[in-house]
């Protein structure tokens, strides 16, 4: 198939990291508004899983990943149309349950043994960033759990099971009211990067590239900013 013609509906499939679900939902609507007759469909999941799916021949048009290593793996295998581009960044904040029961003030509190604190596992980007921030602040943290992703960390904080955790700003925003965010000094030194690329297997490479372009455009960046992401 090619671009929309004669009123028939064309569907493009965007593989998106789970943390982008809501923002990309809006982007998809914006894209459909720009391209009548084109529907955007999302396949959301953990970034490495998405990369594996692409590498195993899953039929997708665009890959938007929260983990650059996943995109580079796909690119290295020659499964992309272009080189991956950064389209958003995210900074870290301390999240505490509503009311801050642990009286957490800053990174130094991560060393307190009377608190239950958590971070992501080292294998995932948010874990690496959290460790870098803690190291920069010379804090030896007493971490009680290393979560596999930000979301489960956030779930835990919301439930009051943890007194504090290091998560993304966008996540704090999404969970507004249930968690409170505390700024971390030097957070801009450790930013998560999000990459997007059109895929080689796309049946509609034109549309795929157009979607990538939309994400990088002013409209796209504004939508992302609304969801707490920093500009690329």
């Amino acid at each position, binding site marked *: 198939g090619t671009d929309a013609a004669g009123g028939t509906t064309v569907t493009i499939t965007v593989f998106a990291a789970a943390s982008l*679900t809501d923002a990309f939902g809006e982007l998809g609507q914006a894209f459909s508004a720009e391209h009548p007759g084109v529907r955007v469909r999302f396949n959301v999941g953990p970034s490495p*899983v998405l990369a*594996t*799916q692409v590498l*195993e*021949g*899953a039929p997708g048009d665009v890959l938007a990943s929260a983990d650059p290593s996943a995109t580079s793996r796909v690119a290295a295998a020659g499964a992309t149309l272009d080189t991956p581009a950064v389209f958003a960044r995210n900074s870290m904040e301390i999240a505490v349950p509503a009311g801050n029961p642990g009286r957490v003030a800053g990174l130094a509190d991560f060393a307190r043994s009377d608190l239950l604190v958590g971070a992501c596992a080292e294998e995932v980007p948010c874990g690496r960033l959290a460790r870098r921030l803690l190291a920069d602040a010379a804090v030896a943290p007493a971490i009680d759990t290393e979560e596999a992703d930000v979301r489960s960390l956030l*779930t835990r904080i919301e439930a009051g099971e943890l007194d504090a955790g290091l998560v993304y700003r966008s996540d704090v925003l999404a969970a507004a009211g249930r968690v409170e965010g505390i700024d971390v000094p030097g957070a801009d030194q450790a930013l998560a990067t999000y990459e997007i690329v059109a895929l080689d297997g796309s049946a509609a490479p034109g549309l795929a590239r157009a979607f990538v372009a939309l994400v990088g455009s002013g409209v796209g960046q504004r939508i992302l900013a609304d969801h707490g992401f920093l500009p690329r």
Partner: protein
Amino acid sequence: MTAPRLARRRAPRPPLVLVVLAGTGVVFVTLPLVALVQRAPWRQLGSLLVRPGVVDALWLSMVTAGAATGVSLVLGVPLAWVLARVEFSGRRVVRALVTLPMVLPPVVAGVALLFAFGRRGLVGQWLDTPLGILLPFSTTGVVVAQTFVAMPFLVVTVEAGLRGADRRYEDAAATLGASRWTTFRRLTVPMLAPAIAAGALLCWARALGEFGATITFAGNLQGRTRTLPLAVFAALEGDREAAIALSLVLVVISLVVLLALRDRWWAPR
């Protein structure tokens, strides 16, 4: 007057130890469910159910879990029979292999399925190019993933049932001229109804709750591969309340199915 007395006699004081242990078990399992229900966003539930995608996911879950159970029955009951009744070398190995998917972390199971049935996979490559069949990202792929993960539960349960059964009834059937196939159909399967029902239930439940293998192998596409657990996953990202509400939908449906099916299937002979 007779009926209650009969009941009274049949069940004289169950032993305290057993009742206490069983009670503990029930409380342990029920508490989290109660907590979940208590914290559930009941007010949202109505609006949630009309959200686009939710009904799709629900329907897809029912269809795929049902299909996976069906496929598991068709392949798994004969498999259990062969394992229990036919002597062949390597039987233990086959039996162990068949039970392995149970212990594989589901995501890895999904990866393994991709390796096998993906477009570049061991078998998938032959399905794709000459035949044009693509399992991943199709509803069929969801069924494949669920079957792979859930069938072993059926096989193990039915095999245990077969091993516990008195084989001499099968002898009797043979003297009446029943081939092994007839015996299987008219004797083994009906006499094993409780074990098969239990196995199918376990299989169905495992398929219905299946997440890791499905998202990895079949992806997460609304209307095609996004089953309810995948929808819960997607929802957890933004709106946790919605995710819990969705899970409750799953729970309620299972409850209805369990309550409805039980008595017909489980009646003691």
